[in-house]
């Protein structure tokens, strides 16, 4: 059975994690980059990228004006909105496709490759992602009492159930699609266009959108 791999915390997770700072009042792309890099740090993914000395990477959306600058400096990472100075490297990516490159990177190839790989860290299992999603989004006003996730893999459907109460929300998709939405790697409404299926009211789609913002953008 194909399943999204679970990433065990590596050695870097046992030492002080690299701080990831973002702007006050940050734009969505800055929040997305910051949240993704924090997840990478939390998972101990590619610590050598964050330990690199100094460098700036411009990250641009391939189809909108969204842009941000990732600055590495002595183990700390800062993400700021816009690109206002020449960067050491430039990545042009599809923000709706887990930072898939849409053109060759420009500038410092090693730096660009490291930051891109940090942004594209493997996702946890869909069950682990669902559990964390449930924890993070429980506080949103009006969130359904019960979340049922059904993963449709090659060995048949597997179900995970969280919470109890009268209002239920059901999400059905591939393990990868579920992991993508539950981690915030994918946006709920975009995932509905690419095969994820949901069962609930229009109101629940609305509040689950807020939940998707929470895990994707920390909003």
């Amino acid at each position, binding site marked *: 059975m194909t399943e999204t791999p679970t990433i065990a915390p590596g050695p870097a997770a046992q030492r002080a994690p690299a701080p990831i700072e973002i702007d006050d*009042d940050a*734009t*969505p*792309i800055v929040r997305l980059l910051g949240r993704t890099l924090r997840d990478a740090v939390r998972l101990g993914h590619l610590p050598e990228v964050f330990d690199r000395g100094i460098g700036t990477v411009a990250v641009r959306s391939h189809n*909108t*004006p*969204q842009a941000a600058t990732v600055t590495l400096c002595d183990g700390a990472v800062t993400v700021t*909105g*816009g690109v206002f100075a020449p960067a050491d490297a430039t990545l042009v990516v599809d*923000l709706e496709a887990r930072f898939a490159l849409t053109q060759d990177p420009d500038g410092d190839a090693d730096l660009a490759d490291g930051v891109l790989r940090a942004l594209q860290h493997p996702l946890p299992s869909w069950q682990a992602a669902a559990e964390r999603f449930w924890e993070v989004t429980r506080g*949103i*006003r*009006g*969130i359904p009492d019960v979340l049922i996730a059904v993963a449709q893999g090659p060995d048949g459907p597997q179900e995970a159930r969280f919470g109890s109460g009268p209002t239920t929300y059901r999400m059905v998709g591939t393990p990868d699609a579920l992991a993508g939405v539950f981690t915030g790697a994918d946006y709920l*409404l975009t995932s509905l266009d690419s095969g994820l299926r949901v069962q609930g*009211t*229009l*109101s*629940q*789609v*609305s*509040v689950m*959108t*807020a939940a998707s*913002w929470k895990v994707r*953008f920390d*909003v």
Partner: protein
Amino acid sequence: MSELTPSESISSAWKVPTKAIRLEATGHDGSFLGKTITPAKFASGKESGFAFADILFAIDLGDEFVFGDAFPDWRGNLYDISMIPDMDTLVEWKPGLGAVIGDYWLRDGRPVPICPRNMVRRLVERLRALGYTATVAVEIETTLFEESVQQARARGYRDLTPLGGDTGATYHLARSKDWVDYMEAVTDRLDELGITWEAWTDEAAAGQTELNLAPTDPVALGDFWVRTKQVMREVAFEQDRTVTFMAKPTAGFGQGAHINLSLHRDGENQFFAPDGPSEVMLQAVGGLLTTMAGNTLLSLPQITSYRRLVDISGPPTTISWGVNNKTAAVRAIVGHPKYSRLEYRLPGSDVNPYYALAGVLAGVVAGIERRMQAPPQVDDMAWCLPDDTGVERVPDSITKAIAALDGDEVLREYLGDEFVDFWVASRRWEWMEFHTKGGDPYAELSAWESRRYFEFP
């Protein structure tokens, strides 16, 4: 006496043949919405109401569903709500066409909690219970362009020619006839519709015009305000011109909508005192300033609204007040039993008029009910104040304003949790759409904003 047919009944009131009735109301973004129905249909539903899908509170200006909150129980899988016309607003819009403004009601007879007009009505009633009647007026700012709306659309609403000349000015009478013709046609229509205007003049920016509506009851003022905008649009269509209420239609300048308010009891202006602001005025100021950060999301509802907030350019940037101080957010006009009033200078021209009025009334009612104290007035220029003065700045982005309203317990009480939750979510949606669908926060004005806000609201 035999009953008149619906058509005859309406016609007899106007003494003209009536072919149709237009039902009118605003959605949440302030766009003037409605539909046109036959006299027979109108007669059958004028008391019970007309079904409108709740989608009118769920679609953004780009026609996308607005998501982000848990709907209240009256919203679900596209339920219907009732729009009940207020017959006091029935007018003959043009020969053969009646027009009437209505409110949105639930099937159980309660007002829709986020219905813009009902929100004003509720706060007027709350003020009346305290023994006061409010009188409000508004200064409507707008910008006119020579091109037709079709030409404007073809150009993406860019590089248009200001009507009346390329220079901004104020009070100049040397304006070209095209601009004068437009405004005279507008005021003629307002006269025909019984909308009392007081003045019009050019404004500080090229093509910009200010039209002042006369003081009246807040609900009526809201009605006149939205209808005046509709008149200005219709006259523009007729004359192949373009008009916009966008807060900042070009990179160069913005436009506001100042609300002037006074309170009366037994015919006496309660804001008047011989030696300056009355105690009631000071309490109202206290309420308006206490709620100003949260009210910013109603006064500055769109992404572009915040582009106006530039120090020393007109709009207020600090949560401040002062006697006859137009650099402050609230200007107190004092010393006259007739003219003593408060001018709330925060709203942009792109507000939903009813929500903006509701926000101001909520601040005033809260100030009086809770006997709030006005902070020290600002005698100096209220722009660019140092931090150590203790005068806070107006939230200068939609996200800061979202946070301010979300956490404003006073406005939650007076506007209702349901409205606040709805509005916070809808504005967060707007922010997300702007950033992820093509808006550029670092441009002076992005094409996405022009497409979204130039024609609506």
